[in-house]
């Protein structure tokens, strides 16, 4: 039993380290900033973490495949805007509207996958291009106005809680669990890890690498679809640019959670921890009354440092 725990600890050392870091930072922030992490602040931390967390789960799949999805901000904005403008506060066709949003986001993911896997466009370029295309398209279609408010059913869903736990948080945990099962118990997950570790060998082994890659981008675009709907529900409305601040946050969360930016490793439990660290840091900086620009600078630094740490680990591994 102890032997098994030891082995488990050894294998998931980075993840344990992430949780430790999150807890240490949380306690430190509690001591430095009065009122941090107690009472209602816990709830607001949970809500914010959930939104980033759901998207980071999608990002995890793409990062394991060795890529990155930078089209999330405007996929998410598009999802939120579609919800408010199509429903116009009414609950009548809400199921159909949600299905339509999921379908459209699937198409976005497929296009990303097509570009990366079949046309061999570098993932960063392809998805950033897609982000820009979505932004332009939405601005043209809506002519600058977002139109409409969120329907009541979605507002209730996004702001309610169950047994004192915010619904959003429950969503996050459930999706995280589903992602974990998909990654570690499905044939798809095995193929995804194989491809991320060594694409050539995976291909020689008969894995349809292009399909598997494309699927990762589809999964990763469904995450902002869901987040967009929930975010609109939480705010009661949508606005253009509501996803912009998420551009790198999801990648930071995944990499902080122990995934290698080169692909081939990562887990939803790790990403969960990474999201926690990120949110604690972010809200600590906000409560320390730092201007947003300073926060952006620090976010950038955290991303770079995390990538250095993780790729350092990777280099050592490759050498052996």
């Amino acid at each position: 039993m102890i032997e098994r725990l030891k082995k488990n600890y050894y294998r998931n050392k980075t993840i344990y380290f992430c949780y430790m870091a999150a807890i240490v930072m949380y306690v430190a922030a509690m001591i430095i900033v009065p009122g941090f992490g107690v009472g209602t602040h816990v709830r607001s931390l949970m809500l914010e973490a959930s939104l980033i967390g759901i998207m980071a789960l999608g990002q995890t799949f793409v990062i394991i495949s060795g890529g990155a999805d930078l089209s999330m901000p405007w996929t998410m904005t598009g999802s939120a805007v579609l919800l408010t403008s199509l429903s116009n506060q009414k609950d009548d066709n809400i199921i159909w509207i949600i299905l339509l949003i999921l379908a459209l986001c699937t198409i976005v993911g497929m296009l990303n996958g097509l570009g990366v896997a079949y046309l061999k466009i570098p993932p960063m370029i392809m998805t950033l291009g897609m982000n820009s295309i979505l932004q332009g398209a939405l601005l043209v279609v809506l002519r600058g106005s977002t139109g409409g408010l969120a329907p009541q059913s979605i507002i209730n869903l996004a702001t309610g809680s169950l047994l004192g736990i915010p619904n959003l948080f429950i969503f996050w945990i459930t999706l995280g669990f589903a992602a974990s099962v998909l990654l570690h118990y499905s044939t798809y997950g095995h193929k995804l890890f194989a491809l991320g570790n060594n694409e050539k060998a995976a291909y020689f082994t008969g894995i349809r690498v292009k399909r598997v890659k494309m699927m990762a981008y589809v999964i990763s675009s469904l995450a902002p679809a869901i987040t967009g709907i929930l975010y609109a529900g939480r705010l009661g409305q949508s606005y253009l640019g509501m996803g912009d601040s998420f551009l790198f946050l999801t990648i930071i969360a995944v990499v902080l959670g122990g995934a290698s930016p080169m692909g081939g490793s990562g887990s939803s439990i790790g990403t969960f921890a990474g999201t926690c660290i990120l949110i604690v840091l972010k809200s600590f900086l906000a409560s320390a009354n730092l201007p947003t620009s300073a926060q952006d600078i620090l976010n950038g630094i955290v991303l770079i440092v995390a990538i250095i740490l993780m790729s350092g680990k990777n280099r050592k591994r490759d050498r052996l």
Partner: protein
Amino acid sequence: MSGFVVKKISKSFGAVKALDEVNFSAEHGEIHAILGENGAGKSTLIKILSGVQQADEGTITLNGKELRFKSPKEALACGIGTVFQELSLMQDLTVAQNIFFEHYPKSKGIIIDKKLLREKALELFQKYDIMDIDPDIRTNQLSLSQQQMVEIIKVISREPSIIILDEATSALTQNRVHWLLDLARKLADKNKMILFISHRLQETRQNCDRVTVLRNGRDVGVRTLNEVDNDELVSLMIGRKLSAYFPEWKPMASEQPQLEAKSLTIDKYLNNVTFTLRKGEVLGVGGLAGQGQVPLFLALAGIRHATGEIMLDGRKIVLRNPGDALENGITLIPEDRSTEGLIQTMSIRINLLLPSLSIFSKWGFLNRKQSERAIEEAIERLEIKMGSSDDMVMSLSGGNQQKVLISKYLMLNPKVFLMLDPTRGVDVGTKSEMFRLVRKLAEEGNSVLFYSTDLSELTGICDRVMVMYDNSVFDTLVGEEITKENILKASVGESIRITQ
């Protein structure tokens, strides 16, 4: 004390003791061979001597001075240069850039002086008799054999006093093997020490001065090579007498064709290749390196697209990718185990499972019980030696890695095996096991297309041998015709038949 002395080196991986107080010494001007079976501890010893891993206990001294190093770079600074079994060249850099990667020649300013680099590289090539490599060519345009030469020059250019050649000949073609062996002797004459690790017994015998034999993580003997015969060496290595190297076998091939290729052609790489592989047959593929053998195998495995027809059991099949080939029961054991065959950074378990995922799953989810049982069976079937199936593939020795590679396809029960030099970088014991396996697969009614750079393997286990020359089939030898001389003759495009 002069020379290189390794004293009581031990190294454990978890519960497995890879090296147990190994002693070893070499002198200046000597080519010293290290022999040992699969898993005897050779790779671990090399990794420690080259700085890739650190010993748990023991000392390494050079001319009386104790050496301590924690990385290949530090080892090199101490005078130990290692040519690794797996190539480490950067594929997108030029040959010259690779050679001088860690010690660019001084030039004015901070910009790399390409001309100077080229000159320096050419100087080295001239010094070490390399004629056929342009220093400015990108490394990925070189053949495996040429890359190995560059790798060797890269290490020698740092002028280490001890040069470790770890299976350095296995990626070389025949004439280049001679080049390397001559080079090693030249360096030894200049008072360097060469540690030579090879699975080819003959080669070791002919070119080395002394040999240290390892078995089960211990050193079991040092011999002077011209005072010891092969049988003694082999029994030292395996601790008992070796039964016949090649298995006894009877031709079992039926007349029924299994796989037929009709005028397969890939522009510039493969020219109108037609042949039939019968059920229960081992069809050898010979010829000098680079005569279209690799493209032929890749085309049959669905990796490269060729025009022409491929028939399986008399039915035409279309192979767009390796997945299609696997579904048709055609498997490829690729040439480069570490980049094409296995995923080094994943566990043995997952590597074994990857091709047969769909067999052991329902609704896209893995059936643990079923798959674990199949993995255990696969490990037992080929007697893969390892700590745990959760260990990474790269922790295994070359021979055991090769077994994992073959096992993962055996789990699929395929009909056709395409084996591209499957004994490359594998020790004598495993080689012999592999020959038995190949014959057994044929006996069970499968067919094997077997490419080897070692002529004795082609004469030893093949029903027929197809010799390729200039990207097409030059001749197919049958029965009594299969001799080393005939294969060699056909390899250079000379007919073995009397013209009528």
